[in-house]
């Protein structure tokens, strides 16, 4: 009743008590759950999650990842004392295992399942149901054609039915003089397959993590590897793996061949690796006879209990250490770990003696020089091999804590010095011997062997992952290529002739539907009527 058109003098009427807001139903717990589920499974949410997934994956490429390179990660954190620990807490060095990244992809997959299940139900229903009734006014459809033809109505309709069937439509007549046809169910089926197969990929990846294992071993030429846990340098089993159940095969490294670029002098090419071939003798676990096997970088060896990959190689100089009386106390091919592309390698020689231990630590250089950058290698092949070592004495193994074979823990050791008081530096070429000061003995660089770095891995999930991803690709192609179309036909009398009206409805942008209708009509009236 309040006339507000004259706002001037009229006394403001008292506000109606409790201007009752439109009463909304209370959601309640179930309601909220249903609401959240609807939101989570909406296409919009999936879109946002997909973009978040892309965004969330990026830090894993910009920051060093602990699982890939723990040393580089530790160094990064050390170099950035403020940001480092915080980023570490937020999971930036373990992105793909971090709670937030996991949350994104888990939500995405829940959303995917919640979206795909109802759609599958609808598709199954549609596959059983008949195409919908012919609309009253076909000329309102986005594409439509009308044509006059001769013949009885039934005949014409039959012709249309045949034409549509020939174009692989499902045809149904809901009433006299009309046809409803639909095709392209495989588009939706492909789309669903794409999404469902992605679940297969995730399951495959997860089972690979749970049941897979990997182990690394460094094997110098001439030595034999027996596939037992104790022989691995590192072994990382999945949570559900029984490491004692390894297949007992053996692998002997007969020769390790490495070729490097020496003819092209340009930067980036000179010294580049060209070929790595590990010639081995493989004795299968099932007792069948030994056979020669070549393992190359792109040619792993399937053993039946894990696959052997050639992932690295390097040098194992044979070093002999004698004590003051000339007795040999150490004589082994000692693998040095390769640290750069020119095969500068680090390693350690640990000699335990009754009076005290001797520890040598330093570099092996296949083509070694010493300049202002210190000892370094200028070519990866063994053209002029050299060892650059420093020496320590004392007790090496003071506790039972495991030590790396390739580095010397110098705590509790004293470094030997030269007469001038500088640390003692040994530079040994192939075949040379160095006499340690104070009658401590000598060290000899006897000969040089190569080693192969094998990684032995098993991933029971990989077949599922591969098959799922290929199915996913097939589904994707089907969903993008196939068109879902509905075509309706109505035949009416127009004097002596029949008027056939054909209407078509495509899903999404379907520019080809007009051609499709024209084609149907052409099959109906093969001779030009004009």
């Amino acid at each position: 009743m309040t006339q507000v058109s004259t706002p001037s003098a009229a006394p403001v009427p008292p506000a109606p008590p409790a201007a009752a807001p439109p009463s909304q139903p209370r959601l309640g717990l179930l309601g909220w759950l249903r609401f959240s589920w609807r939101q989570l499974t909406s296409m919009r949410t999936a879109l946002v999650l997909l973009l978040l997934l892309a965004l969330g994956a990026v830090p894993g490429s910009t920051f060093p990842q602990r699982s890939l390179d723990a040393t580089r990660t530790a160094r990064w954190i050390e170099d950035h004392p403020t940001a480092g620990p915080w980023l570490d807490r937020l999971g930036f060095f373990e992105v793909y295992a971090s709670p937030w990244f996991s949350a994104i992809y888990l939500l995405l997959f829940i959303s995917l399942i919640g979206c795909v299940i109802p759609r599958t139900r609808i598709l199954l229903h549609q596959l059983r149901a008949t195409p919908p009734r012919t609309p009253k006014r076909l000329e309102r459809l986005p594409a439509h054609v009308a044509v006059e033809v001769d013949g009885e109505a039934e005949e014409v309709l039959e012709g249309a039915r045949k034409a549509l069937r020939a174009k692989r439509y499902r045809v149904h007549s809901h009433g006299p003089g009309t046809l409803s046809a639909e095709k392209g169910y495989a588009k939706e089926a492909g789309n669903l397959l794409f999404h469902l197969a992605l679940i297969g990929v995730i399951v495959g990846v997860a089972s690979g993590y749970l049941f897979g294992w990997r182990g690394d071993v460094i094997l110098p030429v001439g030595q034999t590897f027996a596939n037992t846990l104790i022989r691995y340098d590192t072994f990382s089993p999945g949570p559900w793996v029984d490491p004692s159940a390894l297949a007992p095969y053996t692998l002997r490294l007969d020769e390790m061949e490495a070729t490097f670029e020496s003819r092209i002098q340009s930067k980036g090419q000179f010294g580049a690796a060209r070929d790595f071939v590990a010639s081995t003798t493989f004795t299968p676990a099932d007792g069948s006879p030994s056979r020669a096997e070549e393992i190359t970088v792109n040619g792993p060896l399937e053993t039946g209990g894990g696959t052997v990959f050639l992932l690295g190689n390097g040098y194992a100089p044979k070093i002999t250490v004698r004590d003051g009386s000339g007795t040999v106390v150490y004589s082994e091919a000692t693998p040095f770990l390769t640290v750069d592309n020119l095969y500068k390698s680090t390693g350690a020689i640990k000699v335990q003696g009754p009076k005290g231990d001797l520890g040598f630590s330093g570099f092996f250089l296949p083509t070694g020089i010493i300049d202002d950058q210190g000892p370094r290698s200028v070519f990866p092949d063994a053209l002029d091999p050299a060892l650059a070592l420093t020496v320590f004495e004392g007790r090496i193994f003071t506790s039972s804590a495991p030590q790396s074979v390739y580095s010397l823990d110098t705590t509790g050791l004293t470094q030997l010095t030269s007469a001038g008081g500088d640390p003692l530096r040994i530079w040994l070429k192939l075949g040379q011997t160095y006499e340690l000061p104070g009658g401590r003995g000598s060290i000899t660089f006897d000969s040089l062997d190569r080693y192969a770095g094998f990684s032995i891995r098993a991933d029971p999930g990989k077949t599922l992952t591969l098959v799922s991803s290929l199915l996913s690709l097939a589904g994707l192609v089907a969903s993008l290529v196939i068109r879902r179309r509905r075509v309706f036909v109505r035949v009416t009398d127009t004097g002596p002739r029949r008027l056939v009206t054909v209407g078509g409805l495509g899903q999404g942008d379907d520019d080809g539907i007009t051609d499709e209708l024209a084609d149907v009509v052409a099959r109906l009236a093969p001779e030009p009527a004009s």
Partner: protein
Amino acid sequence: MPNTSLAGYANLAVYSAMAVLTLATLAYAVFLARWVPARGETVASVAPESELVPAYAGTSTAYTGGSGDAGADQPAVAAAAEVTAPAEPLGARKAAGIGLSLTWLATLLLAVGVGLRGWSVQRWPLGNMHEFATFGSLAVLAVFAFWARRRDLRWLGIFVVAPVLLVLGLAITVWYTEAAELVPSLKSVWLVIHVTVATISVALFGIGFALACLSLVRDRLATSGRPAWMTRVPGGAALEKLAYSLHIIAFPLWTFTLIAGAIWARQAWGSYWNWDPKEVWTFVIWAVYAAYLHARATTGVSRRTATWIAIAGFLCIVINYAVVNVWFVGQHSYSGIS
């Protein structure tokens, strides 16, 4: 041992292609300049089939059978278009013709370049950044040249040819790598499968990117209404559809790249997925383009938003190529640049 004289001829072919592409760029620029509608002239844009057909179908309820070919009514439509837009200037037509012929010539020269490079190193010529860029440029030119035979794409010419010229310039200078044998991990049949498909996919995404950008600009221009050559190219919606049609070819190819890469990674590195930076970015690109296709299928998300996602996708490709290859530490460090 790579044959250095053959590699020299390969570079010569690339340089020649670049010279030809420079001329093609000029020709396409002249075409666009001559194509600008005169002041006050009513403009009818190039009619791609996608825009024409619905209109034609709507008005032809009295369509009487006939050959059943959609092109049957074409002359009438062409005549109708001529009423609103006078025949385009002869100069424009000539320039575009020259541009197209030069594009073909450049494509052939580049094909010779890639072939000679492959011959000189006795392997598939996709082993370093120089070779990826050259092969990718060839793919872009070939896709464009063949596509331009099927529909009027003269207005797109400069937006394909000029970026290709830029990429070739980088390929022969910054990214140049001497003809050489490959490192052991690249010696595999998967190099041919994985890298070739990836390069073709990137080429398609690249042309799609050009179309996506044009569609956004064209949309803006439709509201400003100033006379420009832009008003002659197909409408924003039609351009967007063209972009989409390329993306839906490129996306499955990229998915295949991802799968083939995983198979190869397992063969060469022992594990099919290592979260190596290059793998991460390949995945990021896949997710962004998946989001694009998803956005385009979502009601309530505008085509414009979807197009922006596609543009973000191509920027990720550029990062993946120009930044990740060179600067990021990973197993894919094959750029040959040090």
